């Protein structure tokens, strides 16, 4: 519990320096940690390219972020989707529970509540251009693409399983890989 408080403080400090979001967003009552994670999700898309010939490459269609399992964002993701555009497209957030509902989407956020079903979920998206993101220890090692974690300083950071990203057909900018902790 004490650790969590520490983490939260660090996140607040980071946020205050960052000034990433609009004042309305910053002032909202949502959890600062998930506001930051929402922001990071949007940043990831800046450094990642989805294959152009997939069923999702139609620019007139919205950019889809699916959250599988219990939604931890508490509206901050929704807010991001309303204020931001990703790849010049509108953003659509879907909340799903079963692996059958996953496709089609660009980003799949795996909630910690689905921790146990990770192998099945990953199997469902295997070799598909879907960026999998989660926030519990071991996700990347199991084959997930990006996993959030907090550094000892309390800063939000992320690890990347570069081989799995490459296998999925996504193209990730070297600068993003360079800054992340690499997991094999």
């Amino acid at each position, binding site marked *: 519990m004490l650790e969590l408080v520490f983490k939260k403080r660090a996140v607040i400090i*980071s946020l205050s*320096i*960052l*000034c*990433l979001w609009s004042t309305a967003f910053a002032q909202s009552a949502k959890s600062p940690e998930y506001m930051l994670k929402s922001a*990071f999700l949007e*940043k990831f898309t*800046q*450094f990642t390219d989805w294959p152009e010939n997939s069923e999702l490459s139609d620019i007139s269609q919205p950019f889809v972020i699916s959250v599988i399992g219990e939604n931890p964002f508490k509206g901050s993701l929704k807010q991001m989707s309303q204020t931001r555009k990703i790849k010049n497209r509108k953003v659509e957030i879907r909340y799903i529970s079963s692996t059958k509902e996953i496709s089609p989407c660009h980003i799949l956020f795996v909630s910690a509540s689905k921790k146990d079903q990770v192998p099945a979920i990953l199997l469902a998206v295997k070799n598909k251009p879907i960026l999998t993101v989660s926030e519990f220890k071991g996700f990347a090692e199991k084959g997930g693409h990006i996993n959030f974690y907090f550094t000892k300083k309390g*800063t939000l950071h992320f690890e990347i399983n570069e081989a799995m990203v490459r296998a999925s057909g996504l193209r990730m900018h070297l*600068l*993003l890989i*360079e*800054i992340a902790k690499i997991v094999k």
Partner: protein
Amino acid sequence: MGLLRKVSIKNKIVMVVLSVCSLTIGLGLSLDFIYSTINIKKSIVNNTSMSAKLTGEYCITALSFNYPDRAGEILEKLNSMPQILNGYVYDESSNLFASYNKAGENPVEIPAKKEASHRFEGDYLHLWEPIFFRGKHLGTLYLRVYTQVTEKIRNHFIIMVSVMFGLLVLSYVFAVTLQRIISGPILKLAQMSREISSKGDYSFRAQKKSEDEVGVLYDEFNSMLDVIQSREEELESKNAELERFTYTVSHDLKSPLITIKGFLGLLEKEAAGGNVDQMKKDISRIAAAADTMQELLDELLELSRIGRLINTPEEVPFKDLVDDAKRLVEGRLIEKNVRLEIESDLPVIFGDRNRLREILENLLDNSAKNMGEQSRPCIKVGSRPDGKEIVFYVQDNGIGIDPEYHDQVFGLFDKLDQSIEGTGVGLAIVKRIVEVHKGRIWVESEGEGKGTTFCFTIPDQRIKKIKEV
């Protein structure tokens, strides 16, 4: 230019070459210096800008995900480039995001800029490079660099001045060596003219080595020397002639005078004795001597006139001249029973009609007088082509002249045979007339008893051949 008056032509050429060289080299190198200075600065800015772009590239994720520490780590890597003293990253709102100061360097207070720009401050370069990712401005990288630009420019300047100095020395050596091509012949000519005027020897001739203007100068110099030399020779011969003239005139005038004086003395005695017959004889001898003097003086006057009094030159058929002369010496020809043969095909010549006639008159008279014991005296007059000129001749079959005396016959009072009548002025007059007409006259004779041929030329472009009617 007053200062240059005493400078030798050698040094003048060197000076001209060096002035031209230093002007062109100086101008060229100055332009190069300006260009290089601009280029040195440009290349420093370009290199720094390149480093800034690369560094900025690495800062993209740090700025995106708000990792100032990460940006700081990247900036730390600038220490591999010791010339970079300060490096700052500003975020998109121009707030300081991360900074790097080289060990021992103080942080600088510098305004953040969003656009690319640079500014030199002595040896220091301030450079701002915006950081973009996919068209989005994320922030700015600022670098402060110690460029040594002053030293670089100074080094370039030193090299340039050395090169210029070297080139000038080279130009000087070349100019000194190569100026001889121009000055050599001129100096030689100057040296020669000095020698000629100091020694008074006009037989020197300059040896031309080139066909340029100096070559022309040599030719003109030589032809001037020719003229001077021939004038001098002419003057000498005229002087000698004048001396001889004075001597012979006084000598030849003296003898009738002595005759007159002698007979006057006799006349005095005879007057006392009352010998009238003898007196009459003596008086006639005195009169004859006076006549001789008169004739001598007349001819001398005539001779002196030739050079001064010239009638307008005209075209004269040579045949007319011969006919006129023949009429004037008819008496002498009849007296000596001389047959005159005149060639039929004679040209027209251009000159003073009366004087030209005198030539033939004197030559015919001279030939007729010198027939000696010839039983069938004959004189031929004609012309023959000789190269480009036409030679006229008066040929007789008289006593002839020993080749030894061929030049003497034209001398004043030079009578080879004193027994023959005449004053000895006739041939001198002929020679003068021919010379006044720029012609030549000479004698052809194989010796005594073999006849004489007088040849002469009257050069003129207008000489034409005409057919006798």
